[in-house]
């Protein structure tokens, strides 16, 4: 069966079939010739041809190290790498490309803030504020740094529907809080947090706010200036780019005041055995040879997403979310975790009497790729009192027909297990 069969060719100008044709991997089959139904986009997204070709072309025609040699290839590679920085900065509406540190992903970005920004400022009795819905990348770095300093990590609670208790978060913004952290979009529940409101409250109290944008940047227009946050971390591989790419946007004055985290080449001004001086941001935080080809690919991904228009992508994914939610609710015993009013196309669910891993294995047999487990969000699983969930996460290239395949596969699995 063609997964796009039965799907209207366009949705508000969004030609799903044409978009799918740009992703070579979506045409493959799994077990016994079953068409792949890829619903693990919150884990990582598939790559369009232009990204794959950009990486390939870089290695074939332009491979050289950046910012070191004066030869032509190195200058071309440097231009491409810095061009990616400019494209990414524009994509999130950063005031300047020089405020964007290129990292291996969100985890490196949050760790950079933990060790370079937070650690030197944290004192015994201080705290860091996060929420119960965070990915471990927005919990563990803060814990590690807090432990070193005798500081405390505290977390705002959620409503049963998966919305953040914003009033509680704001009430917890007490004077000893040195950094507040929140996901823009929850990777498990899909909840879109009211970052502007949170950022305004933080600003009023002089507390910097870090936003984990991993699940937002691929799915909606992001404007860091409008959000009003101080740090914004994101990852490239979830936005159709190569793995090992991502970024940390931070206000210029914050970056300027942060010491280096990794030391090595590229990030220095002058090195003497007695001591070194360091480059200005963002180079200060980019020691060693970066993932140049990866960022060339990520720049291609940004161009691809811009050509589709992030507003249209968000609208298309809302249609998919509504459709898939309604269809899933037809499955007996199925419970969806998270029903926030403002929600991205991520659906975590449980089926009574069936373990999430058994469901995921049986869905896989039908060609449907979902994630099962705790989704790197143990505190959230503890909040709901469940050990694991199944998560179907959609992208703009998914179809209603694929949601139908998911539902049919779930019914079949349920017959076997329940």
């Amino acid at each position, binding site marked *: 069966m063609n997964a796009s069969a039965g799907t209207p060719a366009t949705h508000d100008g969004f030609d799903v079939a044409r978009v799918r044709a740009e992703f070579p991997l979506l045409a493959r089959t799994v*077990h*016994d010739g079953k068409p792949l139904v890829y619903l693990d986009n919150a884990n990582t997204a598939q790559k369009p041809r232009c990204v794959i070709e950009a990486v390939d072309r870089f290695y074939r025609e332009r491979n050289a190290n950046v910012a070191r040699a004066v030869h032509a290839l190195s200058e071309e590679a440097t231009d491409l790498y810095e061009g990616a920085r400019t494209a990414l900065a524009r994509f999130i509406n950063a005031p300047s490309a020089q405020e964007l540190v290129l990292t291996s992903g969100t985890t490196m970005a949050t760790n950079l803030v933990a060790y370079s920004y937070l650690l030197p400022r944290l004192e015994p009795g201080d705290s860091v504020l996060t929420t119960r819905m965070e990915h471990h990348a927005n919990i563990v770095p803060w814990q590690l740094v807090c432990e070193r300093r005798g500081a405390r990590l505290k977390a705002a609670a959620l409503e049963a529907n998966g919305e953040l208790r914003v009033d509680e978060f704001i009430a917890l913004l007490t004077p000893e809080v040195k950094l507040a952290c929140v996901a823009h979009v929850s990777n498990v529940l899909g909840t879109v947090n009211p970052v502007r409101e949170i950022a305004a409250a933080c600003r009023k109290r002089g507390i910097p706010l870090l936003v984990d944008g991993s699940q937002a940047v691929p799915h909606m227009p992001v404007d860091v200036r409008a959000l009003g946050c101080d740090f914004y971390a994101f990852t490239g591989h979830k936005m159709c780019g190569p793995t090992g790419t991502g970024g940390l946007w931070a206000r210029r004055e914050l970056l300027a005041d942060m010491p280096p985290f990794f030391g090595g080449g590229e990030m220095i001004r002058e090195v003497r055995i007695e001591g070194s001086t360091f480059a200005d941001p963002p180079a200060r935080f980019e020691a060693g040879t970066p993932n140049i080809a990866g960022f060339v690919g990520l720049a291609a991904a940004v161009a691809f997403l811009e050509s589709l228009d992030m507003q249209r992508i968000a609208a298309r994914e809302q249609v998919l979310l509504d459709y898939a939610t309604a269809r899933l609710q037809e499955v007996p015993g199925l419970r969806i975790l998270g029903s926030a009013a403002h929600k991205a196309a991520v659906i975590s669910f449980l089926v009574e009497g069936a*373990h*999430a*891993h*058994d469901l995921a*294995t*049986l869905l*896989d*047999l039908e060609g449907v790729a979902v994630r099962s*487990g*705790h989704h790197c969000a*143990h505190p959230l*699983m503890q909040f709901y009192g*469940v*050990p*694991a969930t199944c998560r179907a996460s959609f992208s703009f290239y998914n179809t209603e027909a694929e949601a139908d395949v998911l539902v049919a596969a779930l019914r079949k699995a349920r017959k*076997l*297990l329940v």
Partner: protein
Amino acid sequence: MSAVATATLYREQVLAHARAPGHSTPLDHADARATGANALCGDHLEVQLALTDERISGYAFHAEACVLVRAAASMLGDRLLGLDRAGVHAMALRFERLLQGEAGDTDALGDLAVFVDLAAHPARRKCARLPLATVLAALAGRATATTEEA
């Protein structure tokens, strides 16, 4: 991976053990006990053993876990009685070879031999391993076991 092996992972024999597991009535008296937990999966298993002259004379388990853990725990109970620690170790080694897809003597494994299907499913092997690992922990006087690092 082989489509055939994948399709047979949830064969009726496995499902039957998981639906109505044997050895699920708690023992009146346990000489050893341990908890098996795979936190990443969310699998939780409690094992009780009765021992007579250092040989297993009673076994019971309670699992909140996937089909594979429940079925393996049930099937395991049919093979444990009369074994001492060395015997359980030998069984664990045999079972490990089976999970790796190596041909060998599977008669001693009884119904557990069905997990040869996991040779094609490395990500789920830890599920089938958990009950034996928990029994070995109980015999060694350890309170907990996990197979997630495996």
